[in-house]
């Protein structure tokens, strides 16, 4: 029931978008190849679903994002924890991160192709870059944001070395912020994989819409875009549900 309640605004938004879209089709009188009507696009989307095309491309994109994001978690969370706890590590690494952060992950696509070709490795690399910074930065701010009084409380309650204090107080206290970072990172990864697949791929949702453009099927392009949007919202809500488990509110 709660899920139904949450989806009402989304259904209304889709209806509104569809209406504006249909009006635009009527007014512009554009050809089907340029601006297909919403119902035709939905039919195309349905066709992609029944033929299994959509599932195939979704799995291709999703598995790339999941593996690159997972790799990023393994590297970025420990690095963030280290940078937040060690002044030395922060001094050394912070400038490096600040210099790389403004470079869009998409700017790495040419290098990724040169270095890794158009195979899987290049795309994993791009998503790794896209997901890395939100995770590092949120981990650092999560750890630094731990209420100092909780650290004091931990120390007078038997955490008499840094390790115990870290596992019993700092990490759990920082967890909600770290999870926000993981969620944001998955979102940026999801956006970046489409771009990477537009340029160099034989599968994936990005490939699906690039292919639609080449054969002048804008209904295919738009159906692919709708799928990307809907999947993005679904993945994000899964993260929200997980995040809510860690949202214990103020003490």
């Amino acid at each position, binding site marked *: 029931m709660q899920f139904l309640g949450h989806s009402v605004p989304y259904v209304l938004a889709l209806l509104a978008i569809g209406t504006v879209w249909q009006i635009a089709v009527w007014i512009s009188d554009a050809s089907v190849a340029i601006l297909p009507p919403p119902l035709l696009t939905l039919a195309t989307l349905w066709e992609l679903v029944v033929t299994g095309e959509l599932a195939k491309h979704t799995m291709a994109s999703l598995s790339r994002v999941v593996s690159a994001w997972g790799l990023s978690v393994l590297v970025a969370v420990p690095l963030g924890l280290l940078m937040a706890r060690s002044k030395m590590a922060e001094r050394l690494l912070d400038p490096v991160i600040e210099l790389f952060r403004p470079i869009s992950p998409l700017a790495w696509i040419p290098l990724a192709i040169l270095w890794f070709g158009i195979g899987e490795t290049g795309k994993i690399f791009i998503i790794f870059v896209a997901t890395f910074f939100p995770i590092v930065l949120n981990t650092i701010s999560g750890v630094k944001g731990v209420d100092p009084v909780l650290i*004091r409380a931990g120390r007078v*309650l*038997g955490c008499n070395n840094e390790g115990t204090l870290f596992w019993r107080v700092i990490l759990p*206290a920082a967890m909600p912020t770290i999870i926000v970072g993981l969620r944001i990172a998955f979102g940026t990864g999801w956006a970046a994989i489409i771009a990477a697949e537009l340029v160099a791929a034989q599968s994936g949702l990005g490939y699906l819409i690039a292919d639609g453009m080449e054969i002048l099927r804008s209904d295919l392009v738009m159906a692919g875009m709708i799928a990307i949007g809907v999947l993005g919202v679904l993945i994000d809500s899964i993260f929200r549900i997980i995040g809510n488990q860690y949202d214990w509110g103020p003490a």
Partner: protein
Amino acid sequence: MTRRDQHSKSIEVVDLGMTFRSDDGTSVKALAPTTLEIQPGQFVAIVGPSGCGKSTLLNVLAGFLSPSEGTASIGKEAVSGPSIDHGVVFQDYALFPWLTVLDNVTFGLKSKGLSRSERNEIAMHFLDVVSLRDFADKRPRELSGGMKQRVAIARTFATNPSVILMDEPFGALDALTRRFLQQQLLKIWSESRKTVLFITHSVQEAVFLADRIIVMTARPGRIKSDFQIELDHPRDFSSDAFRKIEKMVFDSLDEELAKTFGLAPNQLQSD
């Protein structure tokens, strides 16, 4: 309670002074060299104007700050850092929000090498004393401020420290909740007779709870007066004896408040 040995230790503070230096090179003397001895099992309240260094004194004893001069010892042993033997109750509760009430109270017992069932048994006993047994499975966010502080008090007493340092523990609570918590604190304290150092802004609270009240001067803080309170518990706020002591403490404090606010003492008539 026979299952655990009761112990409490003395507190000795010798010529303890604290000067804070800020980044721009200026320094503030928070605490003038102070000497103080507290017997094991004594309940001592410290009152004084804001900024008189009473919290600084507590933070040094807790091991959170190193003094600029002098020494602080607990049970003849110099304080070298925070320890589970020196319990602290914080003004803003400092409960771990991700843990249940029960797990908050067992937190400190984990480092004592007790089994899970022993930890839970001890924790439930102390939750019982503060009347929160039924809230063992709740999260801190589901509790009111007063309940949180009772959990925090149970958490500290459960670890069986030899001294308990309380930094304005009821400062954030409303007057009625405060009264109830004062009674609960006396109840839990009378069971173990730990040495307690209790910092407060409320003279009435100090007279209600303590065996001994220390009044501190305005910054830089030093000890101005030291009162022994010989009244039996439970103390009656409205009794003449209570009022007389209250007046004595207020008179001593008023001179300091006048200094803090730049007034003549007679401009500050206490009730």
